[in-house]
Every structure is written in structure tokens, then in C-alpha cells.
């Protein structure tokens, strides 16, 4: 059986598997055991990149992934990332989150620590402000608790460009990359080249637009979408996988992966262009659906009780932090 390709992570010298396991979905299954089976089988198949985030499922995603990685005995072979969720609040809060993440993930270091959800127009300036989260990144690096640092966001390429343009030496940047993004408010067109110029590793996410809407409507297939995303100049494509069946489908694409031809990619972009043009499938760009309650509270945006993350957060109010001053 072919191996999953390994790729350089920017200029860090590290190598990571061309697909990564999304942390949010690892907290989705009904039981820890199901989640563990997915993690163990992925590791066995050669997936080394593991995404996570302090605020996913109120900590359950980190807890389950940490436990499953510990029982696999492979921590040292993996590239473990999690994200910090200050959303404009101060560095001291970030350092507390780091300790919680390390404890849940059952490790004493992270390979990568990223600022989560840089999604609102004023997030870059809040992150870079005196006492802001950027200072925590430096501090954590100096303390040997994190090897590399980056940031993530799903809202708007211009927010990413503002963040990159501030000149901080990020090792990575994460963004939605798929065949709908390709022609509309496009991270692919606007951010990927800029990150490339600065040798910042690009981490793709939402290869199927986060909700698989276009697949359900029959517009494209899952395999087409994943192949497109993996064919971009990215270090890895983070996939949301919450069943063994989805893991198998993704592994099938990833094993012995060969990128699409430029012509194949162009043709898929054209096929998707009309329905990309109003954002119907990229709800992370046009709505609050993908903005965690922590992010909304910090920015005083409203919560809606139907949102799954909001429901979970309301059940566990202790994990909610106050809005930024």
C-alpha cells in the first residue's frame, strides 16, 4: 500500500503528513472509544499532523486526542498542534490556556501553537497590542513549551494579509482552502502566494467547505474536493473526520497522492464558480456559524442557542471568559 506523502513545513525543517486530523471532529463521536479508534488507525496509516484547539467542545477534543495519543505511545512521532483562544484578550490568559492544553493533551510541549480564529477586522491589532497574545507566543517559545507558532482564521483574506503584514515571524498560517474559495474572496489567490513569499507554511482546512454542502447537493464529489485542496502549495490539508468511514475515504485519496494537473484544477474551479459567487457553501466567510462562542463573547457578538458550540458552552459556563475590556 502506498504511503501518505510527507511534506516540508515551511522553513522549520519539520516534515508533516499531507493530510492532518482535524481536532474539532475528534470530539464529535458519541464515545471516547470511537474517537480513539479513529486516532489509532490514522496514526497506523501514517498521519502525523494533529490539529486541535483549546476551545473545541469545551476541551473535550483536546482531552480525547491527548488520551488517544498517549495510549498509542507515538507522541514523539507526531506533529501536535493546538490553538490559543484569547480573541483579543491578554497574554496572561493565553498562558493559562497553554497550561490547560498541555495537561489535556498529556504532553509537555506542542509542535505548533496557533492563535485561533483571527476572524474580526480588529483582531490583528488586538493580537499585536502591548500585552496581547503575540507576547505569549514568544514567552511559550522561550520556555520550550512550543516549537513553532502561527495563526488561523476563516473569515476574510484581508484579515490574514493584515496579520501577516505586521511582520511577526509566524512559522505557519492556517486558512480555508477548497475549490469554492478558489474563485471567491479567495485565500488561495490572495494569501497563499504572500505566505509563500515569506516562507510561512500554509495549512489548509475546510477542504469540503466545513459542511460538505456541495457534496450533499451533488455538485462535486468528496474525493474531487480533497484532491483539489491537497494539490495547492500547502504543507498539509486538515480534514474533519468523525467516523472510520470518512477516515478510510480520506486515506484512499491521501495514499500515494499525486496532485491534480493545472488543467484539472482550472476545470474544477470553473465548474464551481457560479455557486461560489454568493458564498452559499462557504458559511464561515458570511455568517457566525463557525465562530466559537468564546470568540463571539470576547467581541460582544450575539449567541444563538441553536448553534451546537453555543449549547455546549452554555452547559459549561465555567469555561466562558469575559469580553475583552
Amino acid at each position: 500500500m502506498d504511503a501518505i506523502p510527507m511534506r516540508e513545513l515551511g522553513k522549520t525543517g519539520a516534515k508533516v503528513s499531507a493530510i492532518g486530523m482535524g481536532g474539532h471532529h475528534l470530539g464529535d463521536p458519541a464515545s471516547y472509544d470511537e474517537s480513539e479508534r479513529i486516532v489509532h488507525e490514522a496514526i497506523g496509516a501514517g498521519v502525523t499532523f494533529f490539529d486541535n484547539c483549546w476551545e473545541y467542545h469545551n476541551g473535550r477534543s483536546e482531552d480525547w486526542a491527548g488520551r488517544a495519543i498517549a495510549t498509542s505511545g507515538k507522541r514523539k512521532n507526531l506533529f501536535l498542534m493546538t490553538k490559543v483562544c484569547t480573541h483579543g484578550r491578554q497574554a496572561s490568559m493565553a498562558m493559562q490556556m497553554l497550561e490547560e492544553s498541555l495537561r489535556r493533551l498529556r504532553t509537555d510541549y506542542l509542535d505548533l501553537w496557533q492563535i485561533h480564529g483571527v476572524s474580526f477586522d480588529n483582531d490583528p491589532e488586538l493580537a499585536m497590542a502591548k500585552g496581547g497574545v503575540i507576547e505569549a507566543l514568544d514567552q511559550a517559545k522561550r520556555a520550550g513549551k512550543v516549537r513553532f507558532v502561527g495563526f488561523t482564521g476563516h473569515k476574510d483574506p484581508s484579515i490574514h494579509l493584515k496579520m501577516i503584514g505586521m511582520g511577526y515571524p509566524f512559522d505557519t498560517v492556517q486558512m480555508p482552502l477548497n475549490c469554492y474559495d478558489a474563485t471567491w474572496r479567495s485565500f488561495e489567490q490572495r494569501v497563499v502566494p504572500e505566505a509563500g513569499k515569506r516562507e510561512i507554511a500554509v495549512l489548509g482546512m475546510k477542504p469540503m467547505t466545513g459542511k460538505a454542502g456541495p457534496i450533499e447537493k451533488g455538485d462535486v464529489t468528496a474525493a474531487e474536493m480533497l484532491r483539489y485542496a491537497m494539490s495547492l502549495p500547502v504543507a498539509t490539508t486538515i480534514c474533519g473526520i468523525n467516523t472510520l468511514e470518512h477516515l478510510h475515504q480520506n486515506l484512499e485519496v491521501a495514499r500515494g497522492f499525486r496532485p491534480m494537473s493545472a488543467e484539472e484544477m482550472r476545470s474544477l474551479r470553473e465548474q464551481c464558480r457560479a455557486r461560489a459567487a454568493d458564498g452559499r457553501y462557504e458559511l464561515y466567510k458570511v455568517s457566525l456559524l463557525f465562530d466559537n462562542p468564546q470568540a463571539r463573547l470576547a467581541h460582544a457578538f450575539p449567541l444563538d442557542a441553536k448553534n451546537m458550540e453555543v449549547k455546549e458552552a452554555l452547559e459549561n459556563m465555567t469555561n466562558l471568559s469575559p469580553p475583552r475590556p
Partner: protein
Amino acid sequence: MSTTTTRRDLLKLTTAGAAMALAGCARAASSPTAPRASTSSARARTGEIPKRRFGGTGVRVSAIGIGGSHLGEVPNENEAIRIVHEGIDGGITFFDNAWEYHDGKSEEILGRALVGKRDGVFLMTKVCTHGRDRTVAMQQLEDSLRRLKTDHLDLWQVHECIYDNDPELHFAKGGVIEALLEAKQQGKVRYVGFTGHKDPNIHLAMLGHDFPFDSAQMPLNCFDATFRSFEQNVVPVAAKRGMAVIGMKSMGGGGQAVQAGVVGPEEALRYAMSIPGVTVTVSGIDSIDILRQNLAVARGFEPMSAEEMAAIRTRVAPPASDGHFELYKTTKHFDAKVGREQHGYLTVDELPL
């Protein structure tokens, strides 16, 4: 609701003759124009609502208008009709509506209220094709005329240009723009325009087609002033073409900022009405109380000074800078049912924000 309470309190203070003290408290320390503003505030209560030229049309309309969506939300229909009548008696001539508001209820209520009063007002409604063809538009026009009990509209606008591809769809062959021309030729509408609340770039794309729109409607308030700003990006372009500019959402569309105490309701409305280039400010009015409070601001209205406006902008810019006071720009909250259907979006229930 605390918005109402605040407005009502303001009104009480005003009618008790305490307006000058109030204005003094709020502004004297920081603004050299405060005494003048107080004087005009006092004068405001006896004056008429100013009329302004509606773009290049030669028609004049009241500087404040009554929003159609809120009329459909008044719990009691007689109360809604009273709002319209008292508004007209107070000097309001501009009436907003849309084919899709409350599935036609807003147009029906306004139509009933305007029986015998139609000729004295400037009546607008909006067409809601959301990308569909001109025949849909012409059917909607007939619905609107029937519900509004009139044989012509003063203004017919393309509603809710909020999706990035709306301009392209509207201007496509057989699209809604052709219906605007047809309706004009048939004498069923006098003037035409478009509306939207999402992004100045979409408005600019509509204007980029060089169609002779008479008006454009957009959110204009002190938060918009510094965040993805229609005031900065669209008003000057429209004004340069001699178009009428219709402002809406003077409080940010939901009153959250007023509730948070960031801005007072009177201050917010005065800011919106003072923007150079704005013709009329459409205000959502769902009770007689709110109507009276707005009338109190609009009577004898004199615009804020440039310094006063700059001071408000500067004060509210930090909390405005993530868009949480303008949810119509940053969430799906204000995006209506028909447009979502036509653009293949989740429903209001499934995706409230």
C-alpha cells in the same frame, strides 16, 4: 425594552424643557459648538420637518421617513395605521416598504392607512427578485400596487443587493433592471433605485453599471462611519451623480449600541440625518412613542456641526471596529427569507446569525 425607556426618558426631559441641560451635559465639555447646538435643539421642537430635494428628480421629501418593515411588527393594526396618520400630520411624506416584508402584511397595512392620503406622500416599495427574471418583478409590482391601493409608485427599488453576485444577476439579460425600465415606461413607477445593507463594494458594483438610478438606500449611522463604511465609500459617489441617498438603520439596526450606552438614541438619529449628501433617513417605528421621539428630533432639524460628528465618530470607532454593532454587515441576521432561497442558503431558522 431599554431602548424605548431611554428614548421615552429623553422625550420627557425634552418636553419638560430640560433639553438644553441635557445637551449641555453631553457635549459642552468637549465641543465648542454645544451652545449653538442647544439653541437649535430648543428651536427644533416648534419647527417643521425639513424637506430635501430627492436627487435630481425635482421632488422634495421629508428628511425622515417611516420604515415599512416595522409597520408590520406593530402588534395592533389600528396602532400601525395611527402611526402612519400621525406621521403624516407631523410632516412625514416619505414611506418605505418592500414586497417581501412580513409576506405582504406591511404593504397591506400601509395601503389601508394611505386611503385618501396617497397624493400627499412619496411612496416607495421594493422589488424582490433576488436574481430572478423581469417577469417575476412585474408580477411583484402588480402585487405591490394592489396591496398599496394605488396605481403608481413614486419610487421602486431593487431590494437587498447583498450577495456578491447580485449586481451581475440584476443586470443580466432579462433581469430586474429591465423591469425597472418597463415599469417606468408604463407609468407605474416614477423613479427607480436599489437597496442593500451588506457591503459598500456591492453598492459600488451596482453603480458601476452606469444605469440611471434615481436613488440608493444604505445603512448610515455613526458606526458605519468608520467600519466598512457606506458613508465614506458610497455616499460621495451617489451624491456626485446627483442621486438621492436614503439612509437606514440609524441606530445600527437593533439598538444594541443604545442599550450598551455607547450612544444615545437622539444622538444616533441626529448623526444619521446630518451626513452630508443624505436625502432622507428611514426610521423603523413600531409604536406611537417612538414616532413622537423621532418627530421631536426631526422638527426644525439642523444638522450637527462637522466637529460634533467627528467627535462622535472618534468616540464610537473602537467598539465599532469589529462590526458587532452592525450585524447586517457581519452576520446573516438581517438577510431575509426570499433572498436566501434564491441564493441557495440555509433558512433563517437554520442559520440565524
